[in-house]
C-alpha cells in the first residue's frame, strides 16, 4: 500500500482469476451454488461464499472471483444450463483504495454518491472514473476494490493520485 494522501492508501491488486458468467436465472443460480451461495446476489451487490465472490453487475451477468479450487467446479456446475463462461483474468487490473478519504477521492472522478447510505458495503457497479470505464466495489466502509481494463490502469492510477493531491483542502465528507 502506498499512502497517496493523509488518510488514503492505494495498492495494485495481485493477479487473480476473473470469470464472467452470463446466462438466465438457472445459470446464475448454478454459478452461485458452485461457490457455496444459496442464491446469486441481487443487482449491484456482492456475495461471497466458500468458493469465492460473485459480483452481480447485470441482470444476466456475474463477475466471479473464484478460489483456485472452485475454478474447475464452475465448468461442471454450468454444463447442464445454457450459459457463457469467459475468463477475463488478464483483461482487468485491480486497485485497492483504502482509508477515511477513499470515498472522497472516488467522488473526484465519479458522479455517483458514495455516502454509506447510498453506496453501502457490498455494493458494486460499473461506472466511470473520469474518462475510463471502471468497476467499483465497496468492500468496507473505507475500502474500495476498483477494476479497469488493463490499458486504462496507468490513467486511472494517475487520476487517483492527482485527486488525492488536492483532496485534503477544504473538503469535508457530507
Amino acid at each position, binding site marked *: 500500500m502506498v499512502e497517496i494522501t493523509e488518510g488514503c492508501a492505494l495498492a495494485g491488486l495481485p493477479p487473480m482469476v476473473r470469470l*464472467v458468467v*452470463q446466462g438466465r436465472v438457472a445459470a446464475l443460480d448454478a454459478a452461485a451454488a458452485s461457490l457455496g451461495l444459496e442464491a446469486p446476489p441481487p443487482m449491484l451487490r456482492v456475495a461471497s461464499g466458500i468458493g469465492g465472490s460473485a459480483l452481480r453487475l447485470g441482470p444476466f451477468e456475474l463477475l466471479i472471483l473464484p478460489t483456485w479450487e472452485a475454478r474447475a467446479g464452475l465448468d461442471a456446475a454450468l454444463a447442464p444450463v445454457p450459459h457463457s463462461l469467459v475468463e477475463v483474468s488478464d*483483461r482487468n487490473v485491480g486497485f485497492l483504495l483504502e482509508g477515511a478519504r477513499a470515498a472522497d477521492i472516488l467522488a473526484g472522478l465519479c458522479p455517483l454518491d458514495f455516502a454509506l447510505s*447510498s453506496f453501502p458495503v457490498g455494493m458494486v457497479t460499473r461506472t466511470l472514473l473520469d474518462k475510463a470505464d471502471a468497476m467499483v466495489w465497496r468492500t468496507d466502509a473505507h475500502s474500495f476494490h476498483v477494476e479497469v481494463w488493463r490499458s*486504462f490502469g496507468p490513467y486511472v492510477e494517475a487520476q487517483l493520485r492527482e485527486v488525492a493531491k488536492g483532496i485534503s483542502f477544504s473538503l469535508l465528507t457530507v
Partner: protein
Amino acid sequence: MSGAFRLAGRGCIDTTRPVVFRFDGRMVRGYAGDTVASALLAEGRHLMGRSFKYHRPRGPVSAGSDEPNALIGVGEGGRYTPNLRATQVEIHDGMVAVSQNRAPSLRFDIGALNTLAAPLLPAGFYYKTFMWPRRFWDKVYEPLIRRAAGLGRAPTAPDPDHYALHYAHCDVLVVGGGPAGLAAALAAGQVGARVILCDENAEFGGSLLADTYSLIDGLACGEWVARIVAELERLPNVQLLTRCSAFHYGPHNMVALNQRLSDHLATPPADMPRERIWQVRACEVVLAAGALERALVFEGNDRPGIMLASAARAYLHRYGVACGRKAVVVTADDAAYRVALDLAEAGVKIAAIADLRPTPGGPLVEAARARGIEVLPATTIQRAHGHLRVTGAELAPVGADGTVGKGWRVSCDLVLMSGGFTPSLHLHSQARGALRFDDALGVYLPGESIERVRSAGSCRGVFALDDVLRDGVAAGLAAAGGEIGPAWTVMRQDAPGTGGFAGALPRRGPGHLALAFVDFQNDVTAKDVKLAVREGFRSIEHVKRYTTTGMATDQGKGSNVNALAIVSNVLGRRPEEIGLTTYRPPYTPVTFGAFAGHARGDQFDPLRLPPMDAWARAQGAVFEDVGPWRRARYFPRAGEDMAVAVARECRAVRAVAGIFDASTLGKIEVAGPDAAEFMNRFYVNAWTKLGVGKCRYGLVCRDSGFVYDDGVVGRIAADRFHVTTTTGGAAGVLNMMEDYLQTEWPDLDVWLTSITEQWAVIALQGPRARDILAPLVDGLDISAGAMPHMTLREGTIGGVPMRLFRVSFTGELGYEINVPSSQAQAVWDRVWEAGAAFGVTPYGTEAMHVLRAEKGYLIVGQETDGTMTPGDVGCSWAVSKVKPDFIGKRALALPALNAPDRLQMVGVLTEDPRLVLEEGMQLVPAADSPVPTSAEGHVTSSYFSPALDRSIAIAMVKGGRARMGTSLYAPSLDGSAVKVMLVDPVFYDPEGARLNG
C-alpha cells in the same frame, strides 16, 4: 492606520495584520480582510479601470460580485488572471495587481479619445460602418476593433497550478449565506438533512456584514452571524463552503459551484488546488441569492466616486473605509437614508439627499432630517461633474408633470445612488424558472420552476429582516421535509422601503450628447437603448443583441431592469409585455483552469498502451495515435527516415518474417447455444457451416446496408466464436451487438464478453513464420496440411495458453498468436529470440498499411466512409444469398444500393511509377476538366510499394469495376493533373499462392 480614508475602530478587517501589495507598480498598504478595492478606496483612490469601449475612467460601483467597472488583472506569469473584480479580490502580501484597458497609464489613456467620438459610435455602429469592403473585416477592421476594445489580456504562459473537481450529493443545497441562506441551512441541517451551504464571499453573512443597526435576539448582526455559523459548523451533516460561487444551474438539480482555494493566500500549501469545481446533485435547492441595488441612469453616472449607496455602507462597516469626505445621495428608496445616517455618524458630510419621490417620509427620512441632513424631495440629478473623480453634482427639481427644472451645482467627492433593489434571479432563471413581474416592487420575482428549487429572502422580494429570517427557515424546512425550525426575534430593524426607480432619470433638455450609462461594463448608454427601439427593435432579446446591454460578464446584474424600463417607456408598454432577457451561465466568470480540472497534459484523455509498448520504445519505435491507443508506426534504424524504414520492414515481411503487435484489435467472445444463429443475424456472412477450428472474414453492416466494421471470426466451439473487430470499432460493435440482443433478439441464448484486453495478439507474418513458430508451440502441428490458411487451434506456447489463428493481413503465410495479456511480453521475447536467426523484423502500423494495400485489403474507415455497401468495396462474395435475414439485408436489396454507377473500389496506377498520389485526391475525366466539375471518384489509400517497386493506390470510382483499363486524371493543388490507370486492386500475388504457403 493605513490610508487617509480608513476609519479607526470600524470594519471587520484585521488591523493587526498589515498587508502590502502592488497596484500598477505602486505599493499599496491594506489589512488582512481587505479587497483590492477597499484598500485603494482607503487611500482615497476610486480610479481603478478604463471602460470597454470608450476607455472612460472608472471606479468601483459596488462592493461585490456585481461589480462592472473595477476589473483588474491579478498575478504574474502563468498565474496572471485578467478581468477579476477588484471588489472581490482579497489582498495578500506580495500580490501584484494591474489595471486594464489603458495605455500608457490609467490616469492618462490614449484610448479615451474614443469618448470624444462617442456621438459617432452609437449602438450598431460596427455593424453599419464596417460592412464594406467585405474583405476588410477579417484583416483590418476586426483586429483594430479588438485591440481598441476588450478588457484584460489573456495569459500566455502555461498555468503552473492544479485544479480539482468534486462530485457531491446532498439533500439540500443552499446558495447564498446571507440571513435567508443561514436560516435555511440551519433549519434544514437541524432536521438532519445533508446540507451544503455556499457563499461567494470570504465569509458568511451577506447583507448583515454591513448592517450595524439591526439587532437579532439582542445580538448585533455580526455576532448573530458568528453564532449561526458556529452552530452550522457543529452539525456533521452540513458542509460550509465560502469563496464558492454557484455559477451554473443544470438540469435535474445539478448545480456547479466554483470554489477558490488559494488565490487569497500569500503562500498556499504546496499541493493545494487553486480552484475546485463542485458538481452538486441536490434533491432540493434553496436559492438565497439576495438582491442587488440598482444604479441610476444619468449623465456622467460612471465617474469614479459615484457608487451604489449599499456599497458605501459595505466599505464603511466591513472595511472601515469612508468612500469620500462629502457625499450627495440620490435615491428613490428609503434604504439610502440609513446609509446617509451611518456615513454622517462616521464623519462623512452629507451635502444633500436628493429624493426622486415627491413626498418621502417615514422614520428613516425623519431621522435624517433630525440629524440636520438636507433632504430634497422631488429632486433628480441632472448630471455629474468631474473626470477622473466626481467633483460635483447638478441637482434639479422634478415637477409634478415630470419636467425637470433648472438645476444647481453641489460640490462633492462622492455620489451615492439607490434605485431600489433588484432580486437576483440568475440561478432561478437558469433553472428554467418562470419570472413574474411584481407591480408593487416594480421588478421581476421568481415564479414556478420545473426543478426542485425554491427562493428565499430578498431574491424573491422579501426585504424586512424578520421576514427574511422566517422565509429562510420556512424554505429550509420545506426543502428538508421538517416541521419545526429555529426562530429568532428581530429587536430592531429598518422598515424596508417600497420605493425604487427604473430606467433613465428625467432630465432637462434632450441630452443628445449625454452619456448616461445603463450597462457600465459594455459601455451601453440610455441613448443606445432608445436608438435601438427607434430603429425598430421591439423584443428585449433583440435590443440586448443590438446594443450588447446585459451581455457582459456581469450578465446584466445591475443593468437589466434599467434597460427594460427604458424600452418600456419608449414603447409605452408595460415591462412584462417587453419580457426579460435570458440569464446565462456562468453567474460570475470561471477560469478555464477550473473547467479543465484534472483533465490536462497527459491526463487529458486516457492513453492506452498495447502490451508490447515498452519493448517498442526500447527499440526506438516512432509512434502514432490510433484512437485512444498509441501504436508503433515504424522502427527506424540509424539514419533511416520513415520511407526507408517502412520499405525495409515491408521487404523483410515478404522475404523472411515480420513481427507486429496487433493487440489493439477489438475482440469479443460470443458464446451460448444460439451463438451461430446470432452470428448469422448480425453479420452479412453465413456461419452455420463454419467448422470448429475454422476462421472466416466477417463483415458487419448497419441496417442501412452500409459497411460498419470487419474482422476475422474464429469458431472455437459449436457454441463459441472468437470475433475480432477493427481497433477503432471495438466498442461500437460490442454496443451494437448488445443493442440488437437486448432489444430485437432477447430470446436468443447467447452472451457477449469483451476480450480485447484479455488476449494480446502477436502477429508473425512472412514465408518463414512457420519455421520460427513451429518449435515453440509445445507439440502443436502447424504444418500447412494440418493447419491451413484461415484455421485456428488452441494450445500452449511455452506453457502459456494460446489461441493460434492462421490468418494474414499481409498476403504472406501468417499467424496471429493470442496469449493472455500479462504473459504477452514473455511470449513475444521467445518468438523474437527464435526468429533472430532467420532475421525476423519488427514492423509497425505504416508497413502494415502498405502490405495490406498491396493485397487490396480494405480498411474500414479508410476505403469506406459510412456509405459503402459490401459490393462497393468488392466484398459481395461475403454476403450470404441464402440466409433469411441479417442486419442490412433489406437495404442491400434496394435498387439504389445496386446501381452500376456506385463508387466501387479499384486499384490506381500512375504513369510515373515514382509518383505517389495524395490520399483524398479527386479523380476527374479529363486533364483540363473545367472547374468546378463533378469528380468520378477519389483516392482512399496511396503508398509506395516496395514489393512492386512502384507507387500504388486504391480509389473509390463510379462504376469502377467496369472501367478497369481506362484512365482518369487526378488534379493536384498546383494545377497540374496526373494521369492514372484503373486496375484490379489486388496488386501483389493475386492468386494467393504465398498466403496458402
